[in-house]
């Protein structure tokens, strides 16, 4: 492994940017990787994560003691901008890196951090999030997966569903009900945040085929699964608080991801030219609208960074941010499909179809895949409707909806 330095000591943002740019130029695979939803593609992505880790770039914003570079927000944004500029591969351990990692730093014991963080960072262990259940989507706190204490273990029974990366993951961080009595008083009470090794006997993972035919998520069944008590993160029965902090991470700004959307807009512009629409006033208006939306998002990322640097509260901004970027992302990909006109109906092998250039076939397929992901993003991490509830009641202070007692 190369020697890692603390970024703030390593110099100004521009120097760090140059260092990152050079490293990416030397290391990003020349050929795009196969989609991670395929077996071959998944191994390729995991190998890439290993390369990133060895280069010291797996999580530049994490503290050095956990294997990060201690990068401040400006450096983190610069890293992401360079990462997307280099068209580097999609990250595959998002649940671990963006959700569990920060949770462990905030709530985990020293032993848990030592045990899970290094493998998470090097992508030796892939993590998935076990929150949703068949009967508990938006109403997450109604979850029914039970964990009953049995000596120094819990016995877990229940089911999780729509688990992103579930088919590829090694571990799951799950919400389980440990005190059913407490739920009678307040349904958010008595829930515990528990990490479970998916190789434990009694765990069954059934990959689910997604709407676009790829195997991106899974359902996970637990039948008398024995989980050591030391796998509880945070306090027993206090898992809701821990879970809400991961949702905060999920909804809040991923600093620098505006650069990803700028790539998408460039791709959309290429599409407009390719279809001979560069003078078409309607196409220009559509392209202009989504371009404007991404520019606004970039401005917001920098505003939030400034707010965070001055010690401001980002919690209030998380729902606005999530609602905005997921709608923007949908607008980008739906606009692309509209501009493809009749060819928007073609996914597989568009080269066989008159009017579609064979060189763009893979890109076409990828565009459709991203479109469906955009649809998913308006549902996961709290649906758009839940975000609107939060914005109206907690940010704007509108009168509460009468709730059934």
């Amino acid at each position: 492994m190369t020697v890692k330095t603390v970024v703030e000591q390593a110099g100004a943002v521009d120097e760090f940017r140059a260092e990152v740019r050079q490293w990416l130029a030397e290391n990003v695979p020349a050929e795009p990787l196969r989609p991670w939803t395929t077996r071959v593609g998944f191994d390729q992505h995991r190998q890439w994560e290993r390369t990133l880790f060895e280069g010291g770039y797996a999580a530049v914003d994490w503290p050095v003691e956990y294997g990060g570079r201690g990068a401040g927000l400006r450096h983190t944004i610069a890293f992401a901008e360079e990462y997307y500029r280099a068209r580097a591969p999609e990250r595959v351990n998002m649940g671990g890196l963006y959700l569990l990692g920060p949770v462990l730093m905030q709530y985990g014991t020293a032993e848990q951090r030592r045990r899970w963080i290094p493998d998470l960072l090097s992508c030796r262990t892939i993590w998935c999030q076990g929150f949703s259940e068949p009967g508990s989507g938006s109403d997450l706190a109604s979850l029914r997966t039970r964990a009953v204490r049995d000596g120094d273990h819990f016995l877990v029974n229940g089911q999780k569903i729509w688990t992103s990366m579930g088919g590829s993951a090694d571990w799951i961080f799950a919400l389980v009900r440990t005190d059913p009595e407490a739920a009678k008083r307040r349904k958010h009470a008595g829930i515990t945040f528990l990490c479970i090794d998916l190789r434990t006997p009694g765990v069954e993972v059934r990959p689910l085929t997604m709407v676009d035919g790829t195997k991106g998520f899974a359902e996970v069944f637990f039948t008398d699964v024995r989980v050591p008590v030391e796998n509880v993160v945070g306090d027993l029965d206090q898992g809701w608080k821990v879970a809400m902090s991961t949702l905060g991470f999920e909804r809040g700004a991923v600093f620098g991801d505006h650069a990803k959307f700028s790539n998408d807009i460039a791709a959309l512009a290429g599409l407009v030219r390719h279809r001979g629409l560069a003078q078409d006033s309607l196409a220009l208006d559509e392209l202009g609208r989504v371009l404007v939306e991404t520019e606004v998002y970039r401005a917001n990322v920098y505003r939030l960074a400034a707010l965070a640097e001055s010690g401001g509260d980002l919690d209030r901004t998380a729902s606005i941010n999530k609602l905005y970027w997921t709608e923007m992302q949908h607008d980008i990909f739906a606009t692309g499909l509209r501009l493809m006109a009749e060819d928007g109906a073609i996914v597989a092998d568009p080269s066989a179809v008159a009017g579609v250039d064979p060189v763009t076939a893979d890109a076409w397929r990828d565009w459709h895949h991203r479109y469906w992901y955009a649809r998913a993003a308006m549902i996961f991490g709290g649906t758009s409707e839940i975000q609107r509830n939060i914005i109206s009641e907690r940010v704007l202070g509108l009168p509460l909806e009468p709730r059934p007692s």
Partner: protein
Amino acid sequence: MTDTLDLDRRQLDEVTTALLERHCGLDHLRGRLDAGAAHDAPLWARLAETGLVSALVPGEFGGADLTPRHLPGVLHATGYHALPEPYLETSVLAATVLTAFADVPGVARRLASLAEGSLLVAVRISDLDPYVAFAAEADVLLDVAGDGTVTLHRSEEVEVESLEAVDPLRPVARVRTRGPGTVLGVAPELAARVRTLAVAGAACQLAGAARRLLDLTVEYVSVRQQFGRPVGSFQAVKHKIADVAVGVDMAEAAALSALDAIDNPDAAHRAAAAKAYAGQAADRANVEALQLHGGIGFTWEYHLHFWLKRVMSLTAAYGTTTAHRRSLATDLLARVPDGGPER
């Protein structure tokens, strides 16, 4: 961002808000509407006394010697309070132009008059907006042409045709010149800067006006009772307001940062994006604000219409949403190679 700049801004924002709350409240707006005249000399004099009118004028001409980067919050406040004065036009655009040509005979004197509040200046940027705000009220018209030629016309040198404006408190006119006027110079860079200031400045005003529509709506639905509960407790109402809030919040992020980036190479690009988005967000705020106020919002007597009309006027001004989108898209297309979506 320097800390001093930040501090200065906060101070300016406070001063502006305090002044407008006190002297540009609903009574003032109704008074100007009844009088059939937007501009009010006493209010402008107050703005001048606090130094807001002369914000961008150099100290040697009696100004406060600030930069446009000090003004995002001030411009936002002028929209929030629906100020019926040519603040953007005179204090931002004209002050910038006259400062650049201060060496031209007669300009320094006018700059000093502008700074003390005794000279109103309208600005025509024909390739951006065919109409001129506050032209009938202005003592002087500055014409900033697309090729960078800047011409000064005294009011007797122009024929002003006042138009029936959607927002009577932001009057607009068509202006025909009667003579050549006084050419101050040819300065394409200055012209581009003035154009960008107009676009970014209007975006800030628009974001402010849209914020007011949001606040008024939140306030109203929180107290208006139907079916035995505040209408704001219904989810159908809440969700519309949440969408408005996202738009307003993002419009502020884009507009305030576009003016802050006025000295950057991509300033024009950012200003155009900010104006286009603010227009889009303000449209939504306009539609939902009136819808959620119901009948009361439709009355002349109630005050909602000041802001409904202000956002309509500003959305159409200094480049429409569609115009900015198309020009941004055209610029982008010139930069990308042909060839379909890339991976």
